[in-house]
């Protein structure tokens, strides 16, 4: 297999360094490109000014576009990509299912129910924002799954089935609310929200997400070696000293929290959490202490690129990001699947 050379620790460090450099580059591009082009030099100066590293003269408009609009958006996109990829990797390992992704615990369906409750039913009477409603819905769905699967103790299959049941239930509730109470415009709004959008995210969203991500990432890295022990299933992990029940519930709750935060902010962006972990595993192998940081970097790059494409593919219009991640992701994934085929 051609993957062997990247499996050494040298390969991992090289990938991580190249990835971080690539991330800085795509974020810079994301800030530079758009209706109003800002040269990369100006981007650097504007960021320098705000960080107190430089004091260059830049036009107010350019500065505002760079700092107030595009940088926060690009950084949120990067963190969403990182978060979804890590959550996907963890759930694939914990549930021992290659099709697991961040929404497998019903979080996205719950978020959509919460969102339509706010948009269409007006629950909360303006005091509850769309994001807060979505977040509460996501947690309600996760609670439902945790209850049905007996806190994850019922085994991987039961957890997946509970997630499917929750998704069906909450999607049905969403559809019910949209068809009975919504008008055409509201239905369109909901659909747009569900497909995901980074429009409207600014620094406050960045700060909230950064806080959640730091905690989430720390918990996940701390459990990286325990996740490795799940390679041969729950019983094997337990026989190697892993407190299976505790690790499961901690990681389910952490992934649900990270995913719920992301979904409530930018909608349910598909595909990143499913595909990036597979691609990274193919490159550097299944060890989680390397897999999780690498997933974070690659997921971040992928999402920022997808955001650039979604803004620039059609002039004057931004495509929902979920469409782009799937359109870009499927060909990449097909290539990986094709190359990873095993000789029979």
């Amino acid at each position: 297999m051609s993957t062997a050379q990247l499996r050494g620790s040298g390969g991992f460090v090289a990938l991580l360094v190249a990835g971080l450099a690539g991330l800085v580059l795509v974020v810079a591009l994301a800030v530079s490109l758009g209706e109003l082009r800002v040269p990369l030099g100006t981007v650097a100066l504007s960021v320098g000014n705000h960080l107190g590293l430089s004091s260059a003269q830049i036009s107010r408009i350019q500065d505002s576009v760079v700092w107030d609009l595009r940088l926060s958006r690009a950084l949120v996109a990067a963190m969403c990509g990182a978060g979804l990829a890590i959550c996907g990797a963890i759930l694939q390992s914990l549930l021992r299912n290659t099709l697991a992704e961040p929404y497998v615990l019903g979080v996205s369906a719950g978020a959509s129910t919460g969102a339509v409750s706010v948009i269409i039913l007006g629950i909360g009477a303006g005091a509850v924002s769309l994001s807060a409603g979505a977040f509460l819905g996501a947690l309600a769905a996760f609670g439902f799954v945790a209850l049905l699967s007996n806190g994850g103790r019922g085994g991987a299959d039961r957890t997946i089935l509970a997630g499917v049941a929750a998704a069906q239930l909450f999607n049905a509730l969403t559809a019910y609310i949209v068809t009975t109470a919504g008008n055409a415009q509201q239905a369109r709004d909901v659909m747009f929200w569900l497909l995901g959008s980074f429009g409207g995210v600014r620094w406050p969203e960045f700060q909230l997400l950064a806080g959640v991500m730091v905690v989430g990432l720390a918990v996940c890295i701390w459990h990286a070696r325990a996740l490795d022990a799940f390679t041969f299933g729950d019983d094997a992990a337990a026989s190697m000293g892993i407190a299976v029940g505790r690790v499961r519930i901690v990681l389910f709750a952490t992934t649900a929290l990270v995913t719920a935060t992301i979904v409530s902010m930018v909608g349910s962006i598909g595909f990143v959490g499913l595909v990036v972990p597979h691609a990274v595993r193919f490159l550097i192998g299944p060890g989680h202490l390397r897999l999780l940081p690498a997933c974070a970097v690659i997921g971040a790059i992928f999402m920022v690129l997808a955001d650039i494409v979604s803004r620039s593919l059609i002039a004057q219009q931004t495509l929902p990001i979920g469409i782009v991640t799937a359109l870009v992701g499927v060909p990449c994934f097909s290539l990986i699947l094709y190359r990873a085929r095993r000789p029979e």
Partner: protein
Amino acid sequence: MSIRAENLIWRVGRKTILDDVSLAVEPGSVLGLLGPNGSGKSSLLRLLAGLRRPHAGRVTLDGTDIARIRRRDLARRVALVHQHAATELNVTVEEVVTLGRTPHRAPLAGWTAADAAAVETALAQVGMSGFRRQGWQSLSGGERQRVQIARALAQEPRELFLDEPTNHLDIQHQLELLRLISRLRLTSIVALHDLNHAAMFCDRLVVLDQGRIISHGTPDEVLTPDLLRDVFKVDCHFHRDDEGRRHILFR
């Protein structure tokens, strides 16, 4: 006395899988666990390894109830090799054996010389040192079984439990593996199907049927035509070879 089971009862739903099972193993000896399919051998090994809590009774390790020993501390003492180890991941042999070091490593601790030595020794003991870079998916059933045993040995246990370890192995590897187990001088409990192998390699035997211990003792005491007819529903006679060893011949 190292590991001891006292009056274990284990149920799944309303079905009683293990009914009042007690046993003890001499340190450094090999105990063979015999019984037809569904007699409770795997369940008993799970209880002994602390993976399940018995509904009644207890398992003690040097006199301490294992329910009161931390999972991680227990995993440094006791290792279990499951019957069907399977994964979708493309892990290498070395990565699998490295998993055995899990209970010895703090969550973010580096790789120590002791870890490397344990993995090295374990690979050598099962004769898989030359396979370390090979992927799990490309191994034969027997090779996978040996890698799992190496993984268990990398835990550096004093008690080793194996659930039908000779399944999937050709006769050469079956004998090699059983010789390895008796050579290790660990306190071992091995679930086996082959009665002749049990007689050859185990110091003592326990026979389970429908969750109860039917017979226990040395192989010569336990393996009698009556027991084989009652428990395994086979007729047989015994043949003693030139070196004085007994062989079971089935009719």
